[in-house]
């Protein structure tokens, strides 16, 4: 099997733009920037608005995307730049893409008007047809379609090996990493761009998680402190993309690796009390994890958060344990890639040598990544 290394990182969130901004925020330990007013009573972590022109040159392209696609496209550009491949058209034309994506984003005004009108419509079905036909922007469909984040990355950045989009909340982020790592390690492909993006600043996203009772509705508190007060997650807007490649491929093109991805595990099970901790301990054992730092994807949701915390303390008693959400909020599909980005950056700085990144989905799915020195 071939070694898989991280050679590019693109990260954007409420903590800022780029790896350095995130490491500085991690070091400061300050609470992440939180907006408690716009969607009150639901806090969100708003993204540090980037200068999109820097990574998405054409305004016409920017107009074709809703915010989650733009954030992803921007972070993908940062990752390509970081890997030193941004201007290598030939390499990008054989670079593969695995994107963890949700989708959606709606025209909120149109939805509201339709819901209001439906109440008094003589024939609600016909009213719905007529309003959707006249009020929906034709291009909104493409701006909300799951695989069009990948499509836009191909268009804007010329990454055209081929793309595959995985869906399924947190699990899709970890599975994107798992499948890319496996394809590189086995020799099926050489180089990948992998990641995800999330826009939390939208009521339809809040709606889904509020129906399930998952949202934290008080001022910001650290992830580990929330279960004692009922628990809940705070969504964050952000995106993370990574360039992964075989060690041979990186060496041949003279690239410097941040770190190596030694293994990725991901699974699902019917949860019960304590089962998440058991699964994490079993996965850490499979990975041979000996972490001196943990980047946890913990959400703050009651039950699974304490369960994970206990497991992490047991399996990594001497490690520094960080919750990625305390830095960037919960970015759903992008959370596992962001955890790996932070782990790889810490290792590259010499501040850690063996990292464990966890991903316990708010509702289902448990995964882990072991990140080690590039060697």
């Amino acid at each position, binding site marked *: 099997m071939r070694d898989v290394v991280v050679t590019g990182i693109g990260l954007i969130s409420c903590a800022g733009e780029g790896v350095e901004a995130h490491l500085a925020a991690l070091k400061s330990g300050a609470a992440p920037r939180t907006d408690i007013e716009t969607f009150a009573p639901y806090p969100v972590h708003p993204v540090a608005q980037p200068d999109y022109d820097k990574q998405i040159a054409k305004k016409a392209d920017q107009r074709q995307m809703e915010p989650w696609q733009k954030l992803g496209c921007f972070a993908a550009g940062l990752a390509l730049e970081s890997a030193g491949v941004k201007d290598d058209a030939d390499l990008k034309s054989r670079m593969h893409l695995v994107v963890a994506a949700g989708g959606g984003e709606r025209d909120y005004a149109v939805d509201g008007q339709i819901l209001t009108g439906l109440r008094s419509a003589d024939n609600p079905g016909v009213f719905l047809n007529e309003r959707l036909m006249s009020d929906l922007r034709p291009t909104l469909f493409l701006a909300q379609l799951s695989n069009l984040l990948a499509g836009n990355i191909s268009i804007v950045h010329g990454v055209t090996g081929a793309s595959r989009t995985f869906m399924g909340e947190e699990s899709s982020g970890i599975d994107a990493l798992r*499948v890319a790592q496996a394809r590189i390690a086995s020799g099926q492909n050489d180089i990948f761009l992998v990641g995800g993006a999330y826009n939390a600043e939208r009521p339809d996203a809040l709606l889904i998680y509020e129906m399930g009772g998952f949202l934290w509705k008080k001022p910001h508190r650290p992830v580990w402190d929330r279960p004692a007060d009922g628990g809940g997650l705070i969504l964050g807007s952000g995106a993370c993309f990574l360039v992964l490649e075989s060690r041979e491929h990186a060496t041949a093109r003279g690239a410097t690796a941040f770190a190596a991805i030694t293994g990725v595990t991901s699974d699902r099970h*019917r949860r019960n009390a304590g089962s998440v901790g058991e699964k994490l301990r079993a996965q850490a054992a499979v990975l041979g994890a000996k972490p001196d730092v943990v980047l946890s994807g913990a959400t703050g949701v009651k039950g699974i958060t304490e369960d994970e915390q206990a497991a992490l303390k047991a399996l990594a008693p001497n490690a520094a344990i960080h919750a990625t959400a305390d830095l960037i909020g919960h970015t759903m599909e992008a959370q596992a890639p962001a955890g790996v980005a932070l782990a790889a950056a810490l290792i590259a700085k010499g501040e850690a040598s063996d990292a464990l990144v966890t991903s316990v989905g708010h509702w289902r799915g448990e995964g882990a990544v072991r990140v080690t020195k590039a060697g």
Partner: protein
Amino acid sequence: MAYDKHGRPLVAVTGMGVVTSIGQGKNDTWAALTAGKSGIRRISRFPVEGLRTTIAGTIDDVKVDPFCAPMLSERLAVLAAEEAIGQSGLALNDFPGALFIAVPPVEMEWPQREALAKASGQPGDVTYADVLKAASGGQFKAWHDLFIFGTVADRVADTFGTKGSPISLSTACSSGATAIQLGVEAIRRGETNAALCIGTDGSVNPESLIRFSLLSALSTQNDVPDGASKPFSKNRDGFVMGEGGAALVLENAESAKARGAKILGYVLGCGEKGDGFHRTRSSPDGMPGITAIREALADAGLSPDDIGYINAHGTSTPENDKMEASSCTSVFGERMASLPISSNKSMIGHTLTAAGAVEAVMSLLTIGEGRIPPTINYAVPDPAIPLDVVPNVARDARVDFVLSNSFGFGGQNTCLVFGAEPK
């Protein structure tokens, strides 16, 4: 022989299942497909007044409650997988491998939005603030699970006891083919000896239809529903949405033989290529599509001359059929004029996320049955596309190797090669 020309484990198909608008189960679907029967009809599921397109290949006799895309998509997936696993002889509730499932991107639908708006009690203008307030009561808890992206896969994984984290994926209209490709790759890596690969789509609802309609992608020839999907014809004017589910049990050929399974055929090659030209249109030079076909042939260790039939993407849109014809001609050269190529979508409609998997099953049946399904509604040939589209009537033919094309929005091009036996 358990390894292919590249030294990788051969991937055998040991079970297949399908449900479409022309039949439940592969026998019924195949019988209708080779009889040239269309499943396209006037939509009865919701009012069609005010719509430009009023027809689709809906599956109306599969009932789910509440009726919505994720529920119907899950049900179609389960029906197809039950048939496929049943044929394979593997246990129905303890599948010994991974699940790769192409599912339509889900989101909350209008009946649910309306229920929330009503529960909000807002008598004036409804906004998302009202809807959010209604959501906080806990009475809609089940809809969180219903409308998140991973749920269909999770439920299917539970039903059949597949192993590991299931992959839900989308590569738009090539999704079904990508699900198969992911399964093939996992078996070749030695990660698993079996994979359950599914494509499913039950998303003919007002907003989904209107979205495609606003992109001018759909046929508006509503008057004769079963005549609307006319791939490769001069008067084609768009695709017709369809619903369907298809499942394939893939196995490492060696372990399949060791357990005495009947091998229905092989997935010999997969090819893909991204296109960065435009969100909905292909590169004018057709290179991404051409490359995907060539990669699939090379992956299968075959030359263009080995292919005996092409199961076309064949959507019936002016753009796709022209590009597909020219891409195939670039690869197959003069032989393309006599190489049979037909579109299942002329009868089933475009089952979107499911199409690549549905057409994989039909490709393998073509090989197994020695009969090529037709392209129906072929009355006005397009002189710009001089192909043998197997017009209107099925044809008996021995076919050893089939190429199946799938192309999608977002620059997705995925091609698969199936064979009765490896060459």
